[in-house]
């Protein structure tokens, strides 16, 4: 499914808040139809890169191209057209707390498309069922959901408009291992059925082994390696060695859940 066409292409990106840049001339590609796992130490700037790509943080220099279009200097309309083609799953879900689950999933559809209420209802319900929730959840408020359900609803909302790219910020953090494994599998299934490209910021070594086609590693403000898991395991870079071949890394490798 993976092709060589880059849906996201980042070149020379510099982002910083104070004197020292957080991202220092970062280059990264995400190809169509792949799941890219993006790893790095805490505070290395993984979420910063994601937030810069989706336009929540300003960049100092560099080029971000999405679907072959440079995001800088787009008109408001062009920008919205691109934003419609991606979905974002925030780390804490970021569900609208005053809306029910169903309304949360319907929200982007309602805002962007002019559809009949019946169709909006059906699509929202279909999305909820696709992420493994049943119709009863629809009437609940986010505060009444468990952590795993919040993630699923947030994923359903991210998928509401059938995006081409989905950004996932630590999708399995805060889930128990069984829930995390299920969520990984869900992402894999959805990616296969819907043919989406996935940019996944994660710390979960199991996720990296189980679902990621490629892994990119951010360290000291740069992408120091990118490639499939085998490349990471074979690398002699000290940080990669300790990350993938440390105690926890070895365990994840040996107990590979999908092999």
């Amino acid at each position, binding site marked *: 499914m993976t092709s060589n066409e880059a849906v996201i292409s980042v070149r020379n990106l510099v982002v910083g808040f104070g004197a020292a840049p957080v991202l220092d001339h970062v280059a990264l590609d995400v190809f169509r139809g792949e799941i890219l796992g993006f790893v790095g130490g805490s505070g290395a700037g993984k979420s910063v890169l994601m937030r810069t790509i989706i336009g929540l943080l300003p960049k100092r220099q560099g080029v971000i191209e999405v679907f072959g279009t440079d995001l800088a200097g787009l008109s408001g309309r062009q920008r919205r057209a691109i934003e419609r083609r991606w979905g974002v799953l925030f780390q804490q879900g970021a569900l609208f*707390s*005053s809306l029910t689950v169903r309304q949360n999933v319907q929200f982007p*559809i309602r805002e*962007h*498309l*002019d*559809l*009949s209420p019946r*169709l909006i209802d*059906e*699509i929202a*319900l*279909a*999305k909820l*069922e*696709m992420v493994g929730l*049943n*119709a*009863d959840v629809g*009437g609940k*408020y*986010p*505060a*009444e959901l468990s952590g795993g359900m919040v993630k699923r609803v947030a994923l359903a909302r991210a*998928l509401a*408009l*059938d995006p081409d790219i989905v950004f996932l910020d630590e999708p399995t953090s805060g889930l128990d291992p069984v829930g995390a494994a299920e969520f990984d599998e869900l992402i894999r299934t959805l990616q*296969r*059925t*819907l*043919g989406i490209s996935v940019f996944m910021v994660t710390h979960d070594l199991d996720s990296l082994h189980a679902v990621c086609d490629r892994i990119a590693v951010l360290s000291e403000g740069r992408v120091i390696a990118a490639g499939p898991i085998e490349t990471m395991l074979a690398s002699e870079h000290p940080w990669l060695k300790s990350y993938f071949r440390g105690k926890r890394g070895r365990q994840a490798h040996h107990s590979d859940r999908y092999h």
Partner: protein
Amino acid sequence: MSSAFLTGTVDGERVALAAMGAWTAERAAELEKLIEETAHRYKDARSVDIDLAKLERLDMFGAWLIERLKRALTAHGSTTRVVGLSDADCGLIDEVRLVNRAPPTGGGAENRILIALDSIGRNVADIGWSLVLLAQLLGALSVVVLRTIAHPSRLRLASTMHHLERVGWRAVPIIALSTFLIGAILAQQGIFRFRAFGADIYVVDMVTVLVLREVGVLIVCVMVAGRSGSAFTAELGSMKMREEIDALRTMGLDPIEVLVLPRIVALVIAVPMLTFLGSMAALYGAGLVCWLYGGMAPDIFLERLREAIWLPTFEVGMIKAPFMALVIGLVACVEGFEVEGSAASLGRKTTSSVVKSIFLVIVLDGVFAMFFAGIGM
């Protein structure tokens, strides 16, 4: 963007439908009409084939509409098949085949009168419940106060001082200004009306009694409820949302002692002081207006003031102040602890904190009026 079509060819009792173009979210509105017409037109067909071979693009919206068309035709008694699927779209079509199978729940015709009655009932029960909660917090607070009196070192002095500064000191300018204006307005209105029958001088009596007994303390309480009561509710509410209050409990600390007591102590100290200050500012405003607008020399005003003020007049206002402060603090804390998970609930509780505390302050003022009349003050 390419358009989307559905064409049909009839062959006896067999119908072959061919979907073409891009069946995607952008086209979903027209596609929905299209499939409804199609389902209606071919409802008598014995068997229907839906050919997807010529589709350019398909997403979940399109896939669902095809599935809906298929279900509609099947419901009319046709044998429906989906043919010509590409491998890429196969998963999508399979996926939507499983969704939306459960019959729609809820909805249905709801009786408006029942809904209205239901909400009245709930509101009444809520009012009763909030009184219970107030009593509960008052009880818990009394226990904490007694415990603190027994062990004065348990009072969180730093926190209390911090709240005292926020509630009292920082409120001084706005409270002095608003009560000054109220005093001035009362005096101006009084002079304007009283002059008609030559009773200018009694304006001083009226303003003094009004300000010292009622208006001073009420204005201060309204300001404090709006300024500090709302802040307390929002603070406690967001602490509750972030489980900070649960964290305190697990550390063996009493949230009432740590959070509520310092705030209420600060209010009970600050409100009488602000009331005194506010009353003085109002009298100053009244004096200024009497002089500049009513032509009453300051020494005459002061002379009249001395005769008009009777110590109980002043006492009545000052006695009420700490009780009203207690009500504001209790309501604010009760509402804060009642906040649930959502942002909307925080907003709702903050509003109801201000509304309820102002309302209860006015009710309490009425109760005090009857009480003081009863004991002849």
